């Protein structure tokens, strides 16, 4: 006999090689009917796998949230069977469960079109109605290779080769259809249910690598019941109605061109909106004691080498060379320009805090696949500012920035603001006090002031503690957003100490971290 421990703490004796299905039947027939999968020692598992002696077993009904992944994965298999039944010779590549649903990639001479989806869905519903049992078989590598070679499934052969030596090669079968798969799956295709919908097709590179062949991907969404599916489809329809790319077209606000990927062509109505936002921010900043400056878009390589961008961020920068063989770069951030402005003339302790603001256009080379309307672009305008202050002024200035953010967001109707206050990284610069004091005071004040907000933690770059505030859009994109970072000690870009009297240890410092939520690299100081 073997013994297994149940979720409620009870122990049950079973004959050796018993499965979770046997366990459910031994407890009660109604439980056996309800159970579609198991969690064995913390891992989702088939009902048909033999249970190890001493295992902790939890039996899952279909409506358990953890079964949702199985529903989606089962449906991916059903989708692949449907496609290969309808179009024999189509090669199946890979088909996982994903958030809200599933997909499967196929290789085929003519990619699938949206018109194919209803036909495929109908075939899937037939396969589900047939309640074909999922069975699991362990094959030798040679057997598997021979099978997939004979079937011409070249992608499966690649997947087979990627399975590490010593790991079993498992084949899941539903009726006559087989797939190379780690599992687990539920009892039969009927468990997948009918609360699903194929939503769209897309091209997808094998293993997400643009140097590999393009496959044809079919996406579906799936839920445990029709009500949840309907709610999700309604949400998708609403998001589609709100998609800013569609509205931008309908409202005649902007467009994009292939000659400038990720850069906006603003139409008169869009530019008016853009300028209204700048005008609003300009007023708010003037009231808050900022002064506006403007720095060059293109600056010499030497500056970027000093700031560290050349060494650490060049892959994201647009470079330019002139007839006289000088290397320039379009600014990816405004910080260096502000340092040079601050460095002009003598600064007294009495000048602080000095708040330099710029509506600066920055350029960053983002991968083309990451571009998304206005939300992810290659050239954009930052409402950037640097506040030069004494260590004593730091916390108060942080709080002023954060109050300003919350007030501005409120003006735009964003009440659900999430604040992320970064934690202190292992590798960092500056004294412990410079990290701890502002953190403690800001966090305390936020708890009082920043409601309704949600606070959470994020990891700071090594240069200084930062806070991010973001709001959510209905389409699910996290709204951008405000970012504040205090950088108390950095290697200087200019190396000029502040003038007497009472100059503390402050030296001019270079902003180095990511100056917006969206850059993909972080130049060092």
């Amino acid at each position, binding site marked *: 006999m073997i013994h297994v421990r149940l979720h409620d703490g009870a122990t049950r004796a079973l004959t050796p090689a018993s499965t979770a299905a046997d366990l459910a039947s031994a407890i009660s027939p109604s439980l056996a009917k309800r159970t579609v999968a198991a969690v064995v020692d913390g891992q989702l598992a088939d009902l048909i796998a033999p249970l190890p002696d001493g295992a902790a077993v939890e039996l899952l009904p279909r409506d358990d949230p953890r079964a949702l992944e199985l529903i989606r994965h089962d449906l991916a298999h059903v989708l692949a069977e449907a496609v290969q039944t309808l179009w024999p010779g189509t090669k199946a590549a890979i088909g996982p469960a994903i958030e809200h649903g599933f997909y499967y990639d196929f290789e085929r001479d003519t990619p699938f079109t949206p018109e194919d989806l209803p036909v495929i869905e109908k075939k899937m519903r037939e396969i589900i109605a047939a309640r074909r049992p999922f069975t699991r078989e362990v094959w030798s590598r040679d057997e598997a290779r021979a099978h997939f070679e004979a079937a011409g499934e070249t992608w499966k052969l690649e997947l087979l080769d990627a399975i590490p030596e010593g790991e079993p090669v498992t084949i899941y079968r539903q009726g006559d259809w087989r797939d190379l798969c780690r599992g687990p799956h539920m009892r039969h295709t009927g468990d997948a249910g009918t609360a699903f919908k194929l939503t769209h097709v897309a091209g997808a590179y094998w293993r997400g690598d643009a140097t590999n062949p393009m496959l044809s991907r079919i996406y579906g969404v799936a839920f445990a019941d029709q009500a949840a599916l309907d709610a999700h489809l309604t949400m998708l329809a609403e998001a589609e109605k709100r*998609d800013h790319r569609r509205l931008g077209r309908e409202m005649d606000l902007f467009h994009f061109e292939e000659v400038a990927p990720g850069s906006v062509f603003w139409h008169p109505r869009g530019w008016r909106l853009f300028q209204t936002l700048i005008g*609003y921010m300009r*007023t708010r900043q003037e009231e808050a004691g900022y002064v506006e400056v403007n720095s060059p878009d293109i600056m010499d390589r030497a500056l970027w080498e000093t700031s560290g961008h050349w060494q650490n961020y060049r892959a994201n920068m647009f470079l330019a060379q002139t007839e006289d063989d000088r290397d320039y770069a379009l600014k990816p951030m405004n910080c260096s320009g502000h340092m040079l402005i601050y460095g002009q003339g003598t600064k007294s302790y009495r000048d602080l805090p000095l708040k330099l603001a710029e509506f600066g256009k920055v350029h960053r080379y983002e991968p083309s696949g990451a571009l998304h309307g206005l939300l992810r672009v290659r050239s954009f305008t930052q*409402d950037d*500012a*640097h506040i030069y202050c004494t260590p004593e002024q730091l916390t108060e200035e942080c709080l002023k920035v954060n109050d300003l953010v919350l007030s*501005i967001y409120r*003006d735009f109707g964003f009440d659900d603001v999430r604040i992320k206050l970064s934690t202190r990284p292992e590798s960092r610069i500056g004294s412990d006090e410079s990290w701890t004091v502002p953190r403690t005071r800001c966090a305390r004040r936020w708890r009082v002031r920043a409601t309704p907000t949600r606070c959470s933690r994020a990891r700071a770059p090594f240069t200084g503690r930062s806070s991010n505030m973001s709001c959510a859009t*209905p389409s699910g994109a996290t709204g951008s957003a405000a970012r504040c970072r205090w950088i108390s000690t950095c290697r200087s870009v200019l190396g000029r100490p502040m003038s007497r009297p009472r100059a503390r240890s402050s030296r001019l410092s270079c*902003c180095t971290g990511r100056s917006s939520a969206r850059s993909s690299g972080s130049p060092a100081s």
Partner: protein
Amino acid sequence: MLHRALFGSLERFTGILIEHHAGHLPLWLASVQVVVATITGAADLWAADVAETLREAGLRVETDLRNEKIGYKVREHALKKVPVQIALGAREADEETVTLRRHGAPETQTMPLSQVVQALVQEAEAPGGA
């Protein structure tokens, strides 16, 4: 030194605003705040007067004097999410009134021009940080 960006990227913030409001931006942000459309050519002069009065009050106004059905004009400006549409026919021209259609409101309202100007100017003011 503190480094900060409040909108972050203005392009991104604009995209988020559009999605947040589903294109129906509040009056102070709308690029075109009011469209003055005629139902008949007989209202053309009154439409020009109305538009001029609204512009002088600081509002962003366009006129639509095309020889099209009013339903067609209304649909077109609704698609562009213009928050206030003013429709002027012979009666409005005679009485020197305006008929107002707000986005989302089921009914139109007819009222004297001065009343409309006052209400819209107040609403179109940029918020000053509550």
